[in-house]
């Protein structure tokens, strides 16, 4: 039964299986397993492109007196819609329009999912 295999592998895959593991041969599987163990030990989901820069303005923690919103724990659909609105000018930005233009749709979705999964 397929679910057995899934259950067996689940603890090893907290952040999704590396693509090599899904399509690679034996050598790739060995390499991927080694790299993957390292990633799991670091307990750090891979941040999508650009994500680490955002906390320069958007506070990562509570208690900062700023008009700029924290992104952690917000609904990914809302975050992605806001980024797209900034990018196409539907929402009046100061600086965010200029920044949003540096990201593609898939990149925006990845950022939104990542911030949505952060603890509020």
């Amino acid at each position: 039964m397929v679910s057995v295999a899934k259950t067996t592998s689940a603890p090893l895959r907290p952040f999704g299986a590396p693509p090599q593991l899904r399509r690679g041969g034996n050598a790739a599987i060995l390499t991927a397993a080694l790299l993957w163990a390292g990633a799991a030990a670091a307990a750090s989901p891979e941040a999508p492109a650009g994500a680490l820069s955002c906390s320069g303005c958007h506070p990562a923690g509570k208690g900062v007196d700023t008009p700029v919103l924290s992104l952690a724990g917000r609904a990914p659909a809302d975050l992605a819609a806001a980024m797209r609105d900034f990018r196409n000018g539907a929402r009046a930005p100061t600086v965010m329009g200029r920044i949003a233009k540096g990201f593609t749709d898939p990149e925006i979705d990845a950022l939104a999912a990542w911030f949505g999964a952060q603890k509020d």
Partner: protein
Amino acid sequence: MTSRRRFLASTAAAAAAAVLAPHVASAQAAAARVVVVGGGFAGTTCARTLRKLDPALSVTLVEANADFVACPFSNEVIAGLRDLKQQQFGYTTLARDGVTLAHSSATAVDPGGRTVTLENGTRLSFDRLVLAPGIDLRWDGLPGYTQDAAERMPHAWKAGAQTLLLRRQLEAMDDGGVVVMSAPANPFRCPPGPYERASLIAYYLKTKKPKSKLILLDAKDAFSKQRLFQSAWAALYPGLLEWVGLSAGGKVTSVEPSSLTFITDFARHKAAVANVIPPQKAARIAELAGVADRTGWCPVDPSTFESTLQSGIHVIGDAAIMGAMPKSAFAANAQAKACAAAVVARLAGQGVAEPRLINTCYSLVAPDYGISVAGVYRPTNGQLADIAGAGGVSPLDADAAFRAQEALYAQGWFKTITAEVFG
């Protein structure tokens, strides 16, 4: 992929993990050592992020000063709009993240032997070294401008005592005095900084000493947010702030500290208060480590920030050559987080994902008048390059509410970034 192949793949992976686990475990037992030199926006961010990404790492931050004094917003201190205490931050929170603080300065680096020697005699071994030493002023870069001269003609380009010295000189100046500033050729720390400073000093003069004047002598014809600054100056400080670019004879060739005089090829400008922003280079430890090139700055790989001159040594912040990214606190903080991720990946033998970096720099032209420049960057042909179509400056035709909003965002940015780095 069929379910059978998926099953086989996952079984093989589990077996591989089991076989390889002892090696992984022993590598972790001998915790990898990362030394970070420099406790500014870049170094402090990097040290803390390293520990957050991998709590097993041994991370030591080398910083000689007991407190950090932030440069962003120090122009407000000079103009009497802000207290220097609001610029000061301690390092006590580093211990909470498990970062070891070495209160000393780095005096030597042995890239081959992978050690850093500190002024207090300690020798630290590293598996990876991150240099975030900031800038040194080039005391050989402007004839007449020595460290002694800086006591009469402050640079105030490293925040602290110099910031207060310039403020006191402005406060002591008679109404009707001429303030003269000089700005260097590129590259230098905080490209819009000289123009924000000129703006805020002009604001001080306009409100406190309206018969006075400010002349900004510049070694270049183009500068950051130029049209925004010049349009704001025309509106807010007409006749009070005069900018003299390179082609109009603005390049200062020497200074005379005894008479507070700036000398160009065309004129002598005697000042009541003189602010010299001199040429700069990466701080000395970069040169000693062999990571600075003939320009005085440090070339790095744009994905890992590893030096292209010495393997195992990464350089971030103002000391590094970052292509299109400016030397700013925002950029330093963004680079530091990407560098920490790259260091952790490298130590684990992994590849490094291509980073995407953002920069945003706010400048205040007056307390309620903010302007910004932003950029989004990715590695392109070995350099960090602007992503076409993204980034740019605030609109030229924005209204007062927009400028006030950006001034508010500037204040918010400073609180947010200092909370992340030092809070």
